[in-house]
């Protein structure tokens, strides 16, 4: 049985009549890297603020190690927090910033010096310890914030879009660094982001939020390959969606009649009754394109545009009464506009969700 580190039970946050976080149930496993992913305004920061004790939940209970912590003030919660803008103390040096939580906990001088040294080593900033935050680059400030949140060895680290202000290259470097630290220190990390690729890269699990509710919580792989709802399918990566209804079953496969009448074969799932309305999703990179039709699940399509994207081509298609997107390897032939092709959807790559 999983070892729950943090449990949110029925946690709700309202501002007036607006339910920003709505009856949230969430178990965070000890040592996991959990990302909270969702569009702007979906309540991610609010959840983090309630975990850190900066805001009170309107309803519900938060447990850490089985103890309710709703009434514990933030300075006694022992959670490290990394803010989006880092929130480094501008009047303290790097070393003083990192020493701050230790000083607050009454550590001895030499002990503090040693631990600060180690924390700064960990983020490769030992040479900058006497600088003021304003004399550091964004990435360096980020690492100071990280060291400061980790130096007192909290069990949980909360991060609110910590990499949002960094440029792409630095962000990718930091993603790997944080992942590595997570693995090394065995921390529980709750990581807020609205960047889906960041969430996919870093997380053990991802909770996808929409309007204060969890749409799906699962491993990155499951979230990507088997989205639970239309919202998740559309929010994570690109996808093709086809409306239809179940026309019948055949062993472990099911037949779906699309809205234009075409039949399509998909991998079956429990609970797919005949006549049920469904959405078939297939990722663009799973769409096969060929001149002659393949065996099954092939539909005639017309190329409406082909866009070069560096490492691949994005092919926009028209067929079966709707638009499709396919993603082709750069070695693939560059079809001219108006070319008539066949698109093939392997039954295994099609995923069926409720509309």
């Amino acid at each position: 049985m999983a070892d729950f580190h943090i449990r949110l039970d029925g946690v709700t946050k309202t501002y007036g009549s607006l339910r920003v976080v709505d009856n949230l149930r969430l178990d965070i496993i000890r040592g996991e890297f959990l990302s909270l992913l969702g569009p702007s305004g979906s309540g991610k920061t609010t959840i983090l603020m309630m975990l850190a004790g900066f805001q009170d939940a309107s309803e519900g209970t938060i447990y850490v190690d089985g103890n309710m912590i709703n009434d514990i003030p933030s300075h006694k919660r022992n959670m490290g927090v990394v803010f989006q803008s880092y929130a480094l103390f501008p009047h303290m040096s790097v070393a003083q910033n990192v020493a701050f939580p230790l000083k607050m906990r009454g550590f001895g001088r030499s002990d503090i010096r040693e631990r600060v040294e180690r924390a700064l080593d960990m983020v490769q900033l030992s040479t900058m310890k006497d600088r003021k935050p304003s004399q550091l680059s964004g990435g360096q400030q980020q690492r100071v914030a990280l060291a400061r949140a980790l130096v007192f060895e909290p069990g949980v680290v909360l991060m609110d879009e910590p990499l949002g202000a960094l440029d792409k290259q630095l962000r990718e470097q930091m993603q790997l660094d944080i992942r590595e630290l997570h693995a090394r220190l065995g921390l529980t990390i709750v990581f807020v982001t609205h960047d889906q690729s960041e969430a996919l890269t870093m997380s053990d699990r991802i909770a996808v939020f929409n309007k204060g509710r969890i749409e799906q919580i699962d491993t990155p792989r499951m979230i990507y390959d088997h989205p639970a709802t239309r919202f998740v399918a559309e929010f994570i990566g690109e996808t093709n969606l086809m409306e239809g209804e179940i026309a019948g079953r055949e062993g472990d496969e099911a037949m779906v009649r699309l809205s234009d009448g075409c039949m399509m074969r998909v991998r079956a799932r429990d609970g797919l009754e005949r006549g049920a309305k469904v959405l078939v999703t297939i990722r663009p990179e799973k769409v096969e394109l060929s001149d002659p039709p393949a065996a099954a699940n092939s539909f005639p399509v017309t190329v409406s545009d082909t866009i070069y994207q560096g490492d691949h081509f994005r092919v926009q298609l028209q067929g079966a009464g709707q638009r499709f997107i396919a993603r082709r390897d750069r070695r693939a032939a560059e079809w001219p506009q108006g070319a008539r092709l066949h698109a093939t959807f392997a039954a295994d790559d099609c995923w069926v969700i409720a509309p």
Partner: protein
Amino acid sequence: MRPGKLIPAVFGLLAVSFLLLPLLVILPLAFTSSLFLIYPIPSFSLRWFDVLVTNPVWRAAIVNSLIIGIGTTILSTVLGGLASLGLREKLRFVSAPLSTLFLLPMVVPAVVLGVGLQILYARFGLSSTYLGMIIAHTVIAIPLVMVSVTNSLQGMDSRLELAAASLGAGPAATLLHVTLPLAMPGILTGAVLAFAVSLDEVVLNIFLAGPGQRTIARQMFAELRDNISPAIAAAAFLFIAGTIVLMALVLLMRRRVGGTAS
């Protein structure tokens, strides 16, 4: 030069002279050897500074100004600083009216406040006391302290305090280690302004002070009315020099606290 540029340039020059000339003409007269506050200066001497320190009236005035000024600075900075911190908690129908109320002494004419305080002081025996003067000056210094401290608190990233809390600092430690150091430029500015206001205040002094609380400003006022002597210019010189020193001090402190806070 084209007239399109000449006219603004001439206007600017005239306006700057109008603004600065009065300040410039008074300074040299502090060093005149003449008995009168007029140009030309026959020869330079420090006799009027000597008068300031040796003449018992001026000497008492300087001491009184310092006592009342320092008292006002302390009282108004403490009260204003605490209130600015407290007013960050936004309570509807309470915080906004209170902040407005605390700024009102800046609006009410000094004579009006003088009349009210005079009647009040007569009841409580505060007339002609140092405490009475300090209190009266504090009332009019408070808005300036409030404005500068509130500005510096508003300019502060509120997440810094959340960060401090998450790192284990309780409310008192957060105040001591984070909020106060970051608000220090504003607090210092407020303190300097409070001192300056007290130093320059005359009207309330006329209404409320006895002969024992005559300040430099009051003494200057009296001298300007009766026997105009260059001692006024010497006092003015001290005023201007003092202002410059104080402002430099504040700027220096700001630099030091500086960082990204400002």
